[in-house]
Each structure stands twice: as structure tokens, then as C-alpha cells.
């Protein structure tokens, strides 16, 4: 009904629209956004009173002072479509020429920079929003319009194409096998691939296979110590989901289905979500909705699993870490994923001199490269500049000897930024840290050992 009214109410748009249709058309983008608007989106768009407090939470705004980077402003295309086509009384508004002008391709071209380069979907703005608007989710939904209009940044589109074609945005199955074999050699512990009937299936992020492959050896050691039967699936070895980040439902579904199918085929009980922020959201919280059915396995985050193993005494940690460390919360794992206390339990169990940044947990500040921003080459300068917020937090603490995190993307982005800002600060993966402090004796003998964990 709204489509016919739109056509009738927009005779003046005819010329412009015809031109746009020839250029690839805005209609698919508008339809994509319309398809995203449900009662939650509508309520949140309606509730916004344009107070601008969200800017105070955004590392891109804070480090640039550019009001265009106000989180709320990033939602204009979505809001335009909502108010013109979907909102109650929108037909009336169009009739009296009170509805906003329809979305144009020029709008989308202008907003590509705001939606892809300038939002890490970190969701910090929700914390400050008096209306509790989940702006990050709305930004992600808005990206669907840019997908439909073919305005995805080149580097991101290329990564997505590789992910679809070869199973991972950065590596191939062969590389994965080689890396696993190397870690097997390194640790002397088997890294099982495609083991039918294993209890746990581990999917890792491309960045881990490529850059932080020691985590594979670390997992092998931990799982051996805990007596866990695990495997990596050749059909679902990649945990990241660039389709989810770029806003393409089709690609997101394709990628998550690989894990779901592999887990189903191998008959595992658990799928372990790795040290990767959005992989956890995409698999655990959005995965079932993407494939349209509940999973026949349980998703467990690696931090949850490690914490559980320590608490249950299945692994023992030597509390002999002496460095003064702080923990960088990966946004999708803590603020948007709910895994906040587990890494802190682990750090304390390691005996580390662990100090909290002033804003941590739910209020943490993003590394600057989440939400696919690290896959947008042209955003590099902006992402490095945004690190100033994180740097201020770290500097405030003083004397930090290690920045622990639990997301390979955060880790990579932080390392690059630390380098660019001429700082000296090692970035440590928590899983590897846990493995380093593993007490290799059989755990059953002394169940009460990890008292420090509580």
C-alpha cells in the first residue's frame, strides 16, 4: 500500500528517479532499508530527541570534533526511509509534502563514509543515550542500503568476496592446515582437524591463523590439560563474518551456515567462539536468526570456557604473572556480548597485577577498528587517530606493562596504533596468557588449587 502511495505522491521525483534507475537505482536500497525496519527500529527512531549526547561516546567524534560523525547523524538514510515510507501517518505526511524527500544515490554516496569508515559498531553511544537507542545496530542495518546500492568500500567488498570464495577473508583451507600442522610440531600436541564426534569444535578468526597462530598451540595445550576432545572443521574453520559487518544478509548467512553445517556434520556438542568480537555476536546472538532455526549445538565463548575450566579445576594456572597489566574489553564480547567478568577472573587467577581502565566493561572505549572498519583501507588514518581515546585511558593508569585483550582484531588494530603513536606496549592475547601459566600436572589431584580464581 505504501509503495503505491509513494509512486502517486512523487510525480516531481519522476525525472530524478528515472535517472537514478539508469545508474543502478536507488529503489533496491530503499527496499533494503524498509525490510530492516521493525517495531524496535521504529521505536528507537521515534524516541530520538536529537540531544547529541551520543557524540560524547564516539571515539571518532571525540578525536575529530567533526559534528558529522555524531552517531545519530549516521542514521539519516534509515530515518529518511522510515519517515517517508514506513512511519505512522507517513502517507498523510507525503500528501501534505511534510515527509522528507526520498533517499537519493547522492545521499548514500555521502553516507558511505559515515556508515563504513566512521562507525565501529561498538555501541558505546547506547550507554550515554537517554533513550537507550542501540545506534550501532541501526548503523549496521543501514549498511544494507549501501550493499544494495553497491557502495561497499572496495577493500571490504574484496574481503567479503574472498571469504565467500575461499572460506576466509585472509587465508585458504590449505593455509589453515599448514598453520595447524606447524603448531602441532611446535607444541608436540595434536591439532585435530575434522574429528568426527568431537565434543568441541573450535572456529578461529582469520587474523589468528595469519598473525596470532600461537593461539592454536595454546588451545591445544589447554584442551589437553583439561582433557577436552576438540577439533577444527575444514568446512567451517573461519569464525569471522564479514557479511555480518558489511550488512549483507546473504553473505552473512552463507558464512555462518558453514560453521553451523560443519558442526552439524561433525556432530559436536559445542562450538567455541574464539577471541574475536563480532564473531561471537554473529554466531551466538545473530547466527540462529540468520539461518532461521535454533542451533543443534551450544555456542560457548572461549573466555567463558576457560573461566569454567579454571573454576571447575579442570586446568590449573600458576599465579606467577608479575606484570602490571590492564584489560581492553572487546566491545562485541563485553558491552554487546555479556562476557565481562570471565576475563577478569582469569587475569586474577594468573596472579597478574591487574588494574582497570577508568572506563571498562560496559563503558569501554573501542580499539578503533571494530565493525569492519579495520577492513576499510581508506579509514586507516581515522582509525589510528581514534586510538587517542584508548591511549589516554592507558596513559592515565601509568606504568602499564601489558595490554591484555581477547579479540584478534582488537589486538591487531591496537598493535598498529601503538606502533603509529610511537608507544612501547605489548598487546597480549588472554588465551595465550592462560596457556603460558598452565600447570601441566594432572588437574584432578588438587581440585582446590585455583582458589585465586574466585
Amino acid at each position: 500500500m505504501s509503495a503505491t502511495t509513494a509512486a502517486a505522491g512523487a510525480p516531481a521525483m519522476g525525472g530524478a528517479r528515472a535517472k537514478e534507475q539508469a545508474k543502478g537505482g536507488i529503489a533496491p536500497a530503499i527496499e533494503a532499508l524498509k525490510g530492516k525496519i521493525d517495531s524496535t527500529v521504529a521505536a528507537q527512531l521515534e524516541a530520538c530527541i536529537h540531544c547529541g549526547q551520543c557524540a560524547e561516546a564516539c571515539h571518532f567524534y571525540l578525536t575529530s570534533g567533526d559534528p558529522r560523525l555524531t552517531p545519530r547523524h549516521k542514521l539519516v538514510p534509515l530515518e529518511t526511509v522510515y519517515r517517508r515510507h514506513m512511519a505512522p501517518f507517513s502517507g498523510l505526511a507525503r500528501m501534505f509534502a511534510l515527509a522528507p524527500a526520498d533517499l537519493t544515490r547522492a545521499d548514500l554516496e555521502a553516507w558511505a563514509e559515515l556508515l563504513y569508515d566512521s562507525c565501529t559498531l561498538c555501541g558505546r553511544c547506547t550507554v550515554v543515550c537517554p533513550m537507550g537507542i542501540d545506534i550501532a545496530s541501526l548503523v549496521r542495518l543501514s549498511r544494507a542500503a549501501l550493499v544494495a546500492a553497491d557502495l561497499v568500500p572496495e577493500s571490504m567488498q574484496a574481503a567479503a568476496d574472498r571469504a565467500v570464495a575461499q572460506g576466509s577473508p585472509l587465508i585458504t583451507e590449505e593455509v589453515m592446515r599448514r598453520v595447524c600442522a606447524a603448531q602441532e610440531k611446535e607444541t608436540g600436541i595434536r591439532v585435530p582437524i575434522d574429528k568426527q564426534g568431537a565434543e568441541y569444535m573450535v572456529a578461529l578468526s582469520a587474523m589468528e591463523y595469519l598473525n596470532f597462530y600461537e593461539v592454536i598451540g595454546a588451545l591445544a595445550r589447554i584442551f589437553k590439560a583439561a582433557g577436552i576432545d576438540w577439533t577444527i572443521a575444514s568446512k567451517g574453520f573461519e569464525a569471522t563474518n564479514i557479511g555480518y559487518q558489511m550488512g549483507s544478509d546473504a553473505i552473512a548467512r552463507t558464512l555462518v551456515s558453514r560453521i553451523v553445517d560443519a558442526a552439524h556434520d561433525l556432530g559436536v556438542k559445542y562450538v567455541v567462539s574464539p577471541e574475536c568480537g563480532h564473531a561471537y555476536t554473529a554466531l551466538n546472538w545473530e547466527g540462529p536468526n540468520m539461518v532461521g532455526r535454533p542451533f543443534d549445538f551450544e555456542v560457548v565463548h572461549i573466555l567463558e570456557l576457560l573461566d569454567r575450566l579454571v573454576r571447575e579445576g579442570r586446568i590449573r594456572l600458576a599465579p606467577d604473572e608479575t606484570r602490571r597489566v590492564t584489560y581492553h574489553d572487546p566491545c562485541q564480547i563485553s558491552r554487546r556480548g555479556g562476557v565481562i567478568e570471565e576475563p577478569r577472573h582469569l587475569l586474577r587467577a594468573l596472579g597478574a597485577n591487574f588494574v582497570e581502565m577508568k572506563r571498562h566493561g560496559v563503558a569501554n572505549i573501542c580499539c578503533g577498528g571494530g565493525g569492519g572498519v579495520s577492513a576499510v583501507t581508506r579509514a586507516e588514518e581515522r582509525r589510528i587517530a581514534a586510538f587517542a581515546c584508548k591511549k589516554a585511558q592507558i596513559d592515565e593508569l601509568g606504568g602499564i606493562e601489558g595490554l591484555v585483550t581477547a579479540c584478534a582484531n582488537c589486538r591487531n588494530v591496537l598493535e598498529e596504533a601503538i606502533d603509529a603513536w610511537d608507544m612501547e606496549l605489548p598487546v597480549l592475547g588472554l588465551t595465550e596468557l592462560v596457556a603460558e601459566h598452565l600447570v601441566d600436572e594432572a588437574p584432578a589431584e588438587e581440585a582446590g588449587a585455583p582458589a585465586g580464581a574466585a
Partner: protein
Amino acid sequence: METPFWLWLIEGPFWLIAATIFVLGVGWRLVSLLALGRRRDLSVPRGSAAGGALRAILLHFIPHGGFFSSTTFHVLTGYLFHLALFALLLFAAPHVTFLEKNVLGFAWPAMPRWAFIVTAELAFAGLILLWARRISDPVQRQITDGGDHAQLWLTFAVMLTGCLALEEASLALRGLHMVMVELWLIYFPFSRLMHAFTWALSRGAMGATFGRRGVMP
């Protein structure tokens, strides 16, 4: 004193029309908004959606996450204006009388005149400060549209005409205030003034999502 015809018109039929548009408009807007529906979330919850919704609704009344230092102005002026406005709306003597006579049929204690004046001062201070920031903060200027100004000025007009009629001696001023109130009521369902209702939906929806995840941003 007998009510003149024009005042009868304003306080009678026009009031009824405005109130009807307000009630039906708000109702229709909320119903059609909710009718857009929300797909069932198939993920395995870690916590309660309903509990999360309630928590978010309450939690977002006050600044959290350490943001108060950077949003002090917004929080203080926002509360200043809204609390004073609600106090005026509900406890100004003429309002109590009007609601008793025209809407509810029962009354409650109204505030004394001095309290009314102090409250009105606070409400105006809040509204003017909110306006001053809206026109002078680059961030707010970026995201402000005509609707923001329209509702601000309309609300100001309602408050102003109300206070101009403070002496309660002129039927013309009383009528002017009523006309502004009626315009405000008619504009309400079509505007962002709807935030008076949608705030709970917005916070609740967010809270439900994250309540399931066992976290509350």
C-alpha cells in the same frame, strides 16, 4: 461571570476535538508502530528479556558508564525542564480545576501561587537553556530539524500564554492559553513530542535485546 461564546467554543468543542485527535493520534501511532512487529529471537538467552527491558527503562533515567561529567548540561537542563513542566501540568491550580471539570471529575491539592511561580521560572530556565544549546552546539545543529524547533517553540508558547494568564483575570488570555494547548495536543501525535511515550518502548526494546545477552549497556 458567564462564559462568552468564543471561550465556550475554545473550551468546549475545540477542546474535545483537540483531545480526541491527541488520544486517537497517539494511540494509532503507538499501535501501528508496534504492529511493525519484531521477529522472534532464536538465540539461546543468557538472561531475561523482560528483566532487561525493565532494567534499561530504569537504568537510562540516570547517566551511567561515567558519562555524567561530559553530559552534565544535558542531564541537568533536561530534568530541570521536564520535572518543572510536569509539576506545572499536574499541580497548577487552574489545571487541577480544569482537569476536574473537563476530564477526570476529581481534584487533588494544587500548589500555592508562590510555588507555581518558582516552578514556572525553573521550567522556563530549563527550556531556554535547552534552546540555547540547540542553536549553539555544532553537534546539535547537525542533527536538529524543523520539528525540533517547532515543538520547542510550541511548548514555549503554551507555557508562556499560561503564565501570561497568571492573573486569571482575563478571559482572552485564558482563551489564548487554551488555543495554544489545543494546537500542542493536535501537533503532538505527528511530531517528536511522541518521545513522551516512545522513550519507554525504545529503552525497553534495547533492554530486551541485551537482557537476553546478560549485559546492560
